[in-house]
């Protein structure tokens, strides 16, 4: 019984429609991937439905050392999920704090837009929540790449040399906490703002318990971002939405692809802040880190503990540099040997 309960607990994300790896979304992703593979190679006489299927379920990908490490991390990280639960309380706290703070402002009063039609309020809230969430994910993701201490953590995710939908779980637990905190701040303050302005008409348009826009993102193949199926969009659309191929390019080791396409669902942030890279057709990408970090690929000890070591080293270096930037006295007294 206990074993069974634990098993359920470990795999519960697959039956939760609020999670990307929900079986329904995975199935739709497979259908999309299969249709894509078959259609792309439709002029090639060797491309049959069977061969498409074989390429889709390529065992060199699903059973690579990198993928096997993903699966282990998936299970291990469940143990750390407890760190994230208190963030719901934080989120309510932030919402309340925002709500209180707004009452302190003289230029706006609570319920100022309380007469707005409910349908409009709900649509506006659902859209705002999606956009704010997506933008803060973009920002944090960008910082994860740009700040060396954060990059030490985020490296774990980029060390995957093959990608499957489970790779989304290949993250250092501390990165999970950072993303959770981001959610608490972004969502908490949006909730506080909306309830302040619109009162109790605020609600979310949901499908199977999830924001309708997030649902749309998942049913259109969000799982293929971490896969070998390089679905790309028209160039104009890749300026608005990040295609699976664009995210795969983000994982590429090639230098010209570094620090591109940080976006989650929307590409507009990358476009606005100059980090957008359209997908490149017919070009094989190599995923992972460069040679020095090869241990990250499949060694769990390295994956979980090396980031701490690197962060420690980083701060030590910073501290040393700081120490030496203090100008020395112009006429130093003779150092006392016995000191």
């Amino acid at each position, binding site marked *: 019984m206990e074993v069974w309960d634990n098993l359920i607990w470990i795999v519960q994300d697959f039956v939760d429609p*609020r*999670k*990307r790896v929900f079986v329904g979304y995975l199935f739709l992703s497979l259908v999309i991937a299969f249709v894509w593979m078959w259609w792309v190679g439709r002029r090639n006489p060797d491309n049959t439905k069977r061969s498409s299927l074989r390429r889709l379920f390529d065992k060199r990908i699903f059973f690579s050392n990198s993928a096997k490490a993903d699966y282990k991390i998936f299970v291990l990280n469940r143990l750390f*999920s407890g760190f*994230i*639960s208190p*963030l*719901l309380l934080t*989120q*309510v706290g932030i*919402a*309340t704090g925002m*709500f*209180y703070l707004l*009452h*302190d*402002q*003289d230029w*706006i*009063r*609570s*319920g*100022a837009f*309380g*007469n707005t039609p409910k349908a409009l309020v709900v649509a506006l809230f659902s859209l705002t*929540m999606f956009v704010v*969430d997506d933008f803060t*994910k973009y920002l944090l*993701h960008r910082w994860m790449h740009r700040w060396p201490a954060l990059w030490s953590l985020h490296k774990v*995710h980029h060390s995957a040399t093959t990608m499957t939908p489970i790779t*989304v779980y290949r*993250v250092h637990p501390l*990165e*999970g*906490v950072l*993303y*959770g905190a*981001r*959610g*608490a701040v972004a*969502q*908490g303050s949006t*909730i*506080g703002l*909306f*309830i302040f302005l619109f*009162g*109790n008409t*605020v*609600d*979310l348009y*949901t499908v199977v*318990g999830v*924001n309708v826009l997030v649902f749309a993102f998942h049913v259109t193949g969000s799982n293929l*971002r971490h896969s070998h199926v390089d679905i790309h969009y028209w160039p104009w659309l890749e300026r608005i939405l990040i295609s699976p191929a664009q*995210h795969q390019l*983000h994982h590429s080791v090639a230098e010209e692809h570094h620090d591109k396409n940080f976006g*989650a669902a929307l590409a507009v942030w990358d476009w606005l802040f100059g980090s957008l890279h359209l997908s490149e057709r017919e070009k094989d990408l190599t995923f992972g880190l460069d040679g020095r970090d090869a241990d990250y690929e499949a060694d769990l000890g390295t994956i979980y503990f090396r980031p701490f070591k690197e962060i420690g080293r980083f701060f030590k270096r910073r501290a040393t540099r700081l120490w030496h930037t203090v100008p020395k006295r112009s006429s130093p007294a003779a150092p006392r040997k016995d000191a």
Partner: protein
Amino acid sequence: MSITLKLGDGRQFMSKTLLKLTTSLVAGAFIATAATAADTYGPFPVTVKGYEGDKTNSVSYTGQIARHALHDSLKKAAAKGDGGANAAEVEAMLLAYFNGSDEDLAILAPASKDGFPVKQSTVNEISKGKNISGKFYNGAMPAWPGNVSGQEAVLHMIKHAAQSNGGFDAENGYDWGQIISKYTMGAMMYNQAVDNYLDEKLEADNKPNDKPYKDGAYYTGKEHSWDEAFGYWGGPAHTMSLTPKQAYGIAKGKDLAAADADGDGVVDLKSEHVFGPAYYAAGADKGGTQSTNYMHTIMQAFIDGRQLIADAKGEALTDAQRSELKAYAEVIESNWEKVLAEATFKYAGSVYKDIAKMGSLEGEELAKAYRNYVKHWGELKGFAMALQTGKNNLGGTATELNKLIGYGPVTLDNTYVTGIDADGNFLRERRATWSDYQLQMLQAQKLLKDTFGLASLTNDATADLESLAGKLSSDSNAETD
């Protein structure tokens, strides 16, 4: 106890059956007695030693019911002013209900109406010679301006009510009927019950159970002390068979069927009506999260305590019995305090909502909404003051609550009452924004919720924040790319 029956096989079987039958009969009788006892407050037998009269029921709390009628009438009378011309007359009337009168006073409320006939129409029909003033909290009342005692505060209110127009003072933001009434629910009913009858009167040497309450009385000291506390609570004898909704309907004069326990077609105020405190307990249970059971919890403790005293059969209570009785008293006191805090919480939420509503209104509509706001504020203030008349000194909580609510609400020109002058006139020397005052209401709700562990939480101004946050599952936010 053991019964051994050595009989022949067949007969032994029969005796066993007989034994089982007897046992179940006895057990059944116990359960039946317990069930009757648990159902209503009384009748309870006369147990006082040496009583020779013809009374068979020792329950008596008509004095308290008369005071409920005085209180309800006082509230009604507070709206009789015409803006000054009849001030002296109205003040005399209010004081008659407050101090009692040699004349038999008409019961202004609860009065008979279509579909809800009330048996008594004058106070003396319930009980003679009663007043509110003699049972009114008279300790310090820092919630009211002028460094006043509890009684000075209510007399100041009565004076201003008499001068007002229909009990409403738009300029200062007072609804006198509401403030006076809600304050009295604490200063008389709650205070008398929890700080007198359920407190010192439960001590061994105070109103002992082996003596009549007073010479010649048909009830013992403890029996009557308990009844008096029960009378102030204001629930009808058959409260346990009522749902909070029914109790609410009775108090509003709308549910004759639920009120009329003896089926005589009229509501007997002495035992069938729902008055103030019980009404607000029902309101808390009926509204908000509907997760509380204040009304039945308090009522059951009253019945159980009274049963315990009756079971002592006119003997002095042992220390063990008194400590059990005190435990019932503690249940009553703590739940009653919560009921007052829930009501304060509810009206802080109403005031918050009223401000939001007024923001988008003008002219006639605004005036109407402002009237409602002042009414709700009066209930808020009255209940907040009521909370401060209990057995426990609320200390810092009271200070904080009084600061947040203030002496008066923020009025239409953004001024609010800051104190009184030497003649007792209100001064409005400061201004606050509506938003600031809303924030204070939010803080008052939080303070009440945290301090008293409230659960009904009607009109919770931040409930929407929590329910929305719950909808946006936070741990999927940890999903990264």
